[in-house]
Structure formats: C-alpha cells, structure tokens
C-alpha cells in the first residue's frame, strides 16, 4: 500500500512539473466554463445534464494526453527497468500509476463542482441527479484512464500510446452511433459495450447498478491486462 502511494505521488509530482498539467487544467476548465455558460443560457434550466454530456465528450480527447506517458515514457527512458528491479511488486506499480492519474482527473472534476454551486445559488436543481451525474462522469473518466493506461503499457512510444487510446475510446464512445444499422444481438452488444449509453443514464440522474458494474468491470479488466502486459515472465 505504501508503495502504491509512493508511485502515485511520483506520478502526480511529474504531472505538475511539466507545463502539460497546467495547460490541461486551464484549457479543460476554460472550455467547460464556456459550454456551461452556453448551455445554461440556452436551456434556462437548473440542470447539469447537458454539461455532463459535453464533459464526457471532452474527456475523450483529454484523457489520452494524460495517460499516454504512464508506461511508454518509463519504457523509453529505461526507468521501467529501475522500477521493476526494486522490491516493488508489479501490481503496486500498476495501481500506483492508476491512482496518480485518477487523482489528477479527480481534481478536474472537483474544479467543475463550481457549476453545481452556481445552479444551486440561482435555481433549485435536483441534488441527487447532479450528484449522480458527477459520479457518472467520474466513473467514466476512471474507465478512460484505465483504457489509456493499458494502451500505454503496450508501447515505448507516447505518440502510439495516445493514438491507440484515441482509437479505443472513440470505438467505445461512437459505436452507439452505428446502432441504427444493426439489429438483434449485435445491436444489443453495441448498446451494452458503448459507454455513451451507460453515461446517458447517469447524466439524466438515473443510477442503476448495471451501469456502475459496467464501468467497474472495464476498469478491472484494463488494470488486469496492464498488470499482465508488464509481466516479463509472459513475454520473454
């Protein structure tokens, strides 16, 4: 557990030592602010439903930038060899890195908490729906990070890691758009796999166990695959 925290702390400190972290925080929050204003101005409703949908779409582009370096950078710099020859279990390395990025992502979500404050101040929002939406967007981001981390563990190149993460996440997200061309079991599968259909429920304030299980199981799956992909016994 200590090791997990040590690695997470290192990941966070490395994020904040490069301008990328600040650029990402400022850019993300600025873009969210603009959309928040536009949506509230247009809808004239005290709900964050559409704001969440925009955030989901934005995270599709932001998260791969956050996760691309996780393993690719260490592999390219040779520090992976250092991490793996210290008495640190490979599981702790994976979980530490995941935790580090998750904390950074949570920071973005916390900053967006201001929106709730504003609509609470000027309107009467449905508290549970907003809370559910935040939970949903957090789970979805956690899942995006798990996918990005897994992809990053496959390569030494951050560019390849980012592009592969974009392709994987776009597949997860946009697959729902093609559902109209499908029917029967394929349609059901696409609906079940696409993150868009699950997140739509959260954004609307509908919490169901099935959606939570969907996110948690993909997170678990990706973390496990990451753990396997850095296991030298399997690949050498």
């Amino acid at each position: 557990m200590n090791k997990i925290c040590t690695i997470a702390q290192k990941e966070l400190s490395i994020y904040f030592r490069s301008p990328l972290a600040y650029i990402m925080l400022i850019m993300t929050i600025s873009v969210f602010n603009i959309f928040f204003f536009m949506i509230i101005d247009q809808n004239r409703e005290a709900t964050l439903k559409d704001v969440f949908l925009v955030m989901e779409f934005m995270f599709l582009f932001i998260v791969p930038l956050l996760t691309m370096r996780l393993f690719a950078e260490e592999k390219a710099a040779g520090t992976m060899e250092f991490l793996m020859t210290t008495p640190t279990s490979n599981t702790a390395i994976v979980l530490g890195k995941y935790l580090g990025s998750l904390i950074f992502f949570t920071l973005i979500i916390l900053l967006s908490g201001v929106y709730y404050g504003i609509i609470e101040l000027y309107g009467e929002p449905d508290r549970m729906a907003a809370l559910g939406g935040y939970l949903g967007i957090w789970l979805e981001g956690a899942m995006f990070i798990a996918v990005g981390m897994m992809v990053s563990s496959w390569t030494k190149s951050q560019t390849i890691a980012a592009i592969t993460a974009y392709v994987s996440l776009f597949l997860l997200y946009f697959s729902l758009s093609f559902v109209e061309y499908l029917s029967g079991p394929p349609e059901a599968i696409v609906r079940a796999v696409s993150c868009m259909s699950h997140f739509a429920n959260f954004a609307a304030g509908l919490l169901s166990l099935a959606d939570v299980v969907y996110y948690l199981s993909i997170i678990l799956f990706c973390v496990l695959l990451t753990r396997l992909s850095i296991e030298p016994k399997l690949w050498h």
Partner: protein
Amino acid sequence: MINIHNVSKSFGKFLALDKVSCNIAKGEIVGFLGQNGAGKTTLMRILTGYLPPSSGHVTIGGDDVVKKPLSIRRRLGYLPEVPPLYPQMSIREYLTFAAKLKDIPGKDIRAKVDKALSECGLSAAQNKLIANLSLGFRQRVGIAQAVLNDPEVLILDEPTKGLDPIQVRQVRALMLGFKKKRTVLLSTHVLSEIEQVAQRVLMLDGGRVIADSPLAELYKMHGGTLEDIFFKLNTPREEATP
C-alpha cells in the same frame, strides 16, 4: 552467494545466452567481459530478475530469482546500462523516491540518501534537476541509487561509462571499498579497470562462457596482458547484435 546454473536465454530465434554456469562467492568482485552483444547485459538482467531465463536457474543467497523476486531485490543494487533517471526530479528527490521503493524505513531515508550522495560525490549538486546534469553526473546518480540500500550484491552495467578520469578513479575507489563486504559484478569495456578492481573475470562471447577464472590464473594460463588475452579468446565479429 550467486549460483548461475545452465542459464540460456533466447529472444525469438536469437540465442543470447547459451548454457551459462558460474558460481560467485560472497565478497568477490567479478568483471564481465565481452564484445558488444556477447550477452553481458542480458546476463545481468537475468541476475536481477528483470528478465526470466529461458532455461536454467539463478539463485542468490539460496533464493531463486524467479521464484522470490522481492526478497532478492531487497538485497540487490543494480545500475542498468542507461542510468534510470527521471529528468523532472532533483538528485535528492530521485534518491528519496528510490529509497522508498527499496523498503528503506522512513526514519533512515535521510541518512542513507546523505551517505549515498557523499559516497558518489553528489552532495554539492543534490538539488540540481537531473535534466540539467552532464553524462558523468547522471552516471553517478545511477550508482548512488544502486548503493543506496547497502546491498549485499551490486550489479553494475558499465559503471564508468561517460565519466572523466577523475570520476573514474573515484568510482573505482568506491568499488574497491566494497571488496570483501559486498559481492560486485560489473561489466566494462575498459580492460585496465578490470585489472585494477576485479579479482575474477567472466568472459562471454556469443552467449557462451569462454573464460571464467581468477585474474591471476588467467595470466598464468595465457600469458601477456588482459588485452592480449581478450584478443586471443574473442573472435572479431563484423556485426554485433544486442
């Protein structure tokens, strides 16, 4: 102390190590010699448990490196070929991070880091960012990281690469200071270094052991300098594969 038994390692069709066996006693300083691509780095990576051998096994202090990786790594210091550093950190931050990963208890971290810094001549530069360090400094930070946990076994892959003559002498003195106390395995292309530091030579060529004996015996057997012996035993190759 270290028992390498019939270790082979292949990468696809390429055989990097071919039935390497060797016993290294506690307190010995052993120099790994060989041309580029002879298998020195691969053998070192297997000893640290970073790569599993394709066949054969390695035990350190009686524990198998594949079966008990964590307990082995606690007793091990390793400097890879390229010093594994994070350019965003300062030297002290990096060593503190390494100390935490190496299971050094929190209250001892400061003292151990200070000791490693002074041993490697880094005390004055400790707050410099690694990104701004010269090659020689980076190499020394790598060595400091390896000796941080007072390991019983030190594995150094080309420890004096990139150092200036004065630093080479310092590192050599550091290694001589480990004599009898720690088992040191080092690889290098500087033959004079082996002559001054090591008591024993393990020479590899094309993944096979071509010489494994104390330096004195090697001289007696072949005559001449270590350089003569190196040329005598190694066949020059046109192309070396890592």
